[in-house]
């Protein structure tokens, strides 16, 4: 399905409030949304959500022949898929620009930073090595898929355990998890990505942009860092011009966020470990919240409107209120009460500047100009009679 373009009103509104350092969901420009990390019952599956953006990562392993150039190293594959359930514009199988970019950034962040120790994945040099495959699926896109995906991938890799192997001469035995405990991967460091979105020619920036904010951004900077202050990946994209100092400023901000996130991952891993050792049930089913849409509306919305005396009957009013609430919980800005303008008409908040009057004046101006032109043509040409009816036909 083709993407619905963002309307000019919404675009202007977003740019205006960003210039005032405010955000639609009330966050500070450098705040992240609520981050949740949940592990599945299989080793190596992890789901991370940044607010409403949800990403699922799964790690699996297989024995295969190594690359010719590096016979003593295992292989790491990273694949990011934008599932059609994530956003109406995602299509099955089509490799859009966005998906290529996401894949390349994830590849660079995980593979080229050498975060996983590949030499320990070697079984027989030159013949058999472990190939570890990370499959990341974006389940719901509400902005900032990359940060979410990087955390999911790293957490999944840290959670994953591969089967134990014994090599006796030419024989290789892969033990099942019943025979011997599986072994976790050795991870040197955790490179995490932080996305900065720039607006107004690079003057204002936001961390963790939401989907609407992403649509109006002029450019993005992605910084992949680990908690040892090493920058693993840096990329500036978009149609904007930056200064060197901005880059350095952002790396400092990114470091703070990365440390926060790394602690969160370690905490989640520790919790999962203790839950498993205690024999408690673990997995997605236990840790996901239930999201149920009911017709029971929150009392607030209905009360606010009933305060103003609307001349319309209360039945139809509450009916329309009900519809509004079922569509989805809408957060109204605090301090904005509806203003009744006329019979059955109320305004909440302020609208954009009305430009119709300007448009009318412009059209009038054009018409005046045309009249003058027609008059001069009439004088210049010989066929004066013919041009007059033409002029009147316009107006």
């Amino acid at each position, binding site marked *: 399905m083709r993407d619905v373009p963002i309307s000019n009103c919404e675009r202007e509104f977003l740019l205006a409030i960003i210039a005032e350092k405010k955000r639609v969901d009330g966050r500070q420009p450098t705040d992240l949304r609520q981050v949740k990390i949940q592990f599945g019952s299989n080793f190596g599956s992890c789901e991370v959500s940044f607010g409403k953006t949800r990403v699922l990562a799964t790690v699996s392993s297989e024995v295969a022949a190594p690359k010719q150039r590096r016979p003593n190293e295992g292989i790491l594959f990273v694949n990011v898929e934008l599932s059609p359930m994530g956003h109406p514009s995602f299509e099955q199988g089509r*490799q859009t*620009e966005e998906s*290529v*970019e996401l*894949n*390349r950034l994830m590849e*660079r962040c995980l593979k*080229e*930073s*050498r975060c996983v120790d590949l030499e320990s994945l070697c079984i027989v040099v030159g013949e058999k090595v472990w190939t570890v495959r990370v499959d990341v699926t974006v389940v719901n896109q509400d902005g900032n898929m990359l940060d979410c995906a990087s955390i999911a991938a790293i957490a999944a890799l840290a959670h994953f355990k591969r089967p134990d192997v014994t090599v006796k001469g030419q024989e290789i035995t892969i033990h099942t998890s019943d025979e011997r405990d599986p072994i976790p991967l050795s991870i040197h460091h955790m490179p995490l990505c932080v996305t900065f979105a720039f607006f107004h020619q690079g003057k204002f920036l936001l961390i963790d942009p939401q989907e609407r904010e992403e649509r109006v951004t002029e450019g993005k*900077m992605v910084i992949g*860092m680990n908690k*040892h*202050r*090493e*920058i*693993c*990946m*840096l*990329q*500036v*994209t*978009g*149609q*904007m*011009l*930056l*200064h*060197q100092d901005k*880059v*350095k400023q952002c*790396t*400092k901000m990114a*470091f703070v966020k990365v440390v926060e996130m790394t602690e969160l991952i370690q905490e989640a891993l520790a919790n999962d470990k203790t839950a498993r050792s205690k024999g408690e049930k673990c997995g997605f089913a236990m840790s996901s919240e239930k999201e149920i849409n009911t017709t029971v509306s929150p009392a607030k919305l209905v009360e606010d409107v009933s305060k103003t005396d609307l001349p319309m009957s209360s039945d139809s009013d509450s009916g329309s209120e009900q519809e509004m609430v079922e569509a989805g919980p809408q957060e109204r800005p605090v301090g904005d009460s509806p203003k009744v303008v006329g019979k059955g008409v109320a305004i909440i908040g302020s609208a954009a500047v009305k430009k119709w009057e300007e448009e009318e004046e412009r059209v009038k101006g054009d018409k005046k100009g045309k009249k003058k032109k027609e008059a001069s043509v009439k004088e210049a040409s010989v066929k004066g009679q013919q041009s007059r009816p033409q002029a009147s036909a316009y107006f």
Partner: protein
Amino acid sequence: MAGVELLSDQGFRIDGRRPHELRKIECRLGVFRQADGSAYIEQGNTKVLAAVYGPHEVRGGRGKALHDKVVVNCQYSMATFSTGERKRRPRGDRKSQEMTMHLQQTFDATILTTLYPRSQIDIFVEVLQADGGNYCASVNAATLALIDAGIPLKDYVCASSAGFVRDTALVDMNHLEESSGGTELIIATLPKSQQIVFLEMNSRLHEDNLSAVMDRAVAGCTDVYNVLDTAVRDHVGETAAAIGGDAA
């Protein structure tokens, strides 16, 4: 690759350069008759051709036309004989697609796009020999081609790469230095205002070393700009003399 020293004790690199020295740059404008603008650049052993067509009507239906800007269409292609091993897919694989996107974004930010609404500018880049710094040479070649085509730009776009070996920042890395696994920072700037149009960095680098590497790369861009500017002025002088007008 073990055993290959990228920086000797005396401060010389593998090809005998000093850390702050660029490779030899040779360039020519106006190499094709058909294209509106074209250029050829050699940076050391990396050889890149660029051709620009436009501005012209949008191909592929009116749906793709933008009402207020020009559509910048790029294509980055590597010849099959350009690398050590024969390349099976000259274009269409992930890395080429990524390069195409980066080139498109770089030039979208530099061309004065609001001057040609409902039109399209095509930039075709072909790498004939790849010896490191492919993106940089492509950007430099495309800049020259755009100047040759007479398309208004905010400024020259010059790109340069820099790396970090043994606590020294190196500029303009060749293929051997790139593939040794050290860090590589690729930057494209507008030299006069020192603004960054594109920045990409791979592999681990400590935050404290970032400024040194960035400064070295930006200095590299300024050096490239000097070379390109001289080449453009010479070309314009020659053309003017050929037409018979006064070059001044």
